[in-house]
């Protein structure tokens, strides 16, 4: 891939930054996997990296995995229709900046709206402890469609996302 070319299609950015379900997979040096729920994501302006917000209270094991191995996968799924995408690539963890708190809080609000549509009340989902967070920064090298069905796991056709 030519240097500087974006790997995250423009057409995906709004979807990735909406209030949909964000799920992270990591693994330790012993190949033991870890699943954790993230609190939103923000695509970098260069279209090659994405920040995924990991609530500190529940992400210690996943954060330790990434620090040890530099690997992570992040899946996005829209609850109402299960439209799902997975991004993969080299990853690192950094501390969140204070200005990112607004992004995380906005995500929690949008996430509540999404789950309310499918019947989970805001009084419950709103208790999701999103902040403080660490930030998982992934340099996206591969994108896969993850919507359940015969095409799940296949690389996303670039034109489909644009």
């Amino acid at each position, binding site marked *: 891939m030519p240097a500087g070319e974006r790997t995250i299609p423009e057409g995906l950015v709004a979807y990735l930054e909406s209030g949909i379900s964000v799920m*992270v997979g990591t*693994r330790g040096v012993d190949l033991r*996997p870890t699943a954790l*729920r993230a609190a939103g994501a923000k695509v970098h302006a260069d279209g090659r990296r994405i920040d995924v917000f990991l*609530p500190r209270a*529940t992400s210690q094991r996943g954060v330790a995995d990434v620090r040890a191995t530099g*690997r992570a996968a992040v899946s996005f799924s829209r609850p109402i229709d299960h439209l799902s995408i997975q991004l993969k690539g080299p990853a690192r963890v950094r501390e969140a900046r204070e200005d990112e708190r607004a992004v995380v809080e906005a995500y929690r609000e949008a996430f509540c709206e999404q789950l309310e549509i499918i019947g989970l009340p805001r009084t419950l989902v709103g*208790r999701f402890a999103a902040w403080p967070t660490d930030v998982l920064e992934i340099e996206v090298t591969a994108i896969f469609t993850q919507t359940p069905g015969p*095409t*799940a796991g296949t690389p996303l056709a670039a034109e489909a996302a644009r």
Partner: protein
Amino acid sequence: MIDVSKLPSACFQGVTPGIIATCSKDGEPNATYFSQVFLVDRTHVALSCQFFNKTRRNVAENPRAHVQLYDPVTFEAYDLDLRLERSETSGPLFDAMAVRIDAIASTTGMAGVFKLLAADVYEVVAVEKREGFLLPCDSPVEPSFPPTDYRSELRALQVVSDRVHRARSLEELLGSMLEALQQEMGFEHAMVLLPDECQGRLFTVASRGYPPRESGIGAEVAMGKGLLGTVASQKRVLRISSVAQDVRYGRAIRGAALEHGLGDVLSPEIPLPGLPDAQSHLGIPLLVQDRLVGVLAVESKNALGFQEWHESFLGVVANQVALALDHMLVDEADDEEEKPPSSVLVASDGGGEARPHLPVLQERRLRLRRRRVPDPERPGPHLMEAPSQLPGRAAPGLHEPRAAARRQPRSPADQGQPREPPHPAAEAARAEVPGRAPSADGPRPLPPGDGLPRRARREGLRVATLFR
């Protein structure tokens, strides 16, 4: 000591999708969601495998997995470290998982496309509540779903059992059983369907807890189609919580299958039975030995309306009802020459008394009589539909003795006469079967009488066919 069965049971009902992470042997992690974890025993859970996806390929290389599941009542999270132990492609666990998937596949028009390939059984290596997942809460939180009222279980079972045991007729059996289920156990919406083996369909013969115009009496369901059709054809219990979630999942796969060029093998979607806004369904086959004599179906607007306990309770009731129904049908068939017909079909909105309704059973018996007589032109079991002869909803001969109705000659003018318009619910259910042509067999002459002796009828005919 690990005991995953101590987790809240709602975690295992597929209401809130969970997350699963796996890792390939070369160290590539993968994360996705799953719709349901099945509790196998205290140290094992099972995940369904419908597609050979990345998760499945990963655990084949590296058997470790980690799932996070959520209690939909509290939204608390639980982490489970798992190790793939075995994959089952048959047996009770596989069957229990498959019936649910088959029912949703049928409902979303994907029978055969979306199906269970294996029940992957994992050993639970560690289980832990994810502390800190939710913010502390000062005031009590309203539960997301109304709590289930268990009442006094044994007493309720005794009441239902008494009603079933004392029933002297089919209408009393079905009506009092549904009434007791509602009053004693709070099953607000329930129906009983009986099979018509020759046509491969189920007919709703009794219901309770539905508005009068939506009682569903007479409504038909094709065997193997939709939720209740799957219960009947597979003779297995089906319990679905949060059916909207499952249907959304099915539709997502359907959309992907269409994009994948599989449109030719997909079927139209099948409407869900009963209430338009039902969230939970529990369908129990009424079996005598391995023979289907009916289906008992209950539904709820509560996404967590039915739990394992309800399934067990209704399973006991269903066994009693099946036996009683079986005996009663044989007895009624033997006595039908002497006794006036009973309008067995009952419907109630739950508040008032059960009302006589469309005599579908009566219709079935008449049709059975026609079928019993060998037709030299059409060998084998078949149905001679005689529309004008069948008592309709408001037909004057509704309560006439069947023998008298049978004796009436059929005039040529009658043969092309359409039946009275069907009940809307029946019409809706008929629409379940694509391309179904009403009266496709065409009118045929009514045979002169019942050609089989009672003993042959008792020994040679399956009870369920007595409704035809």
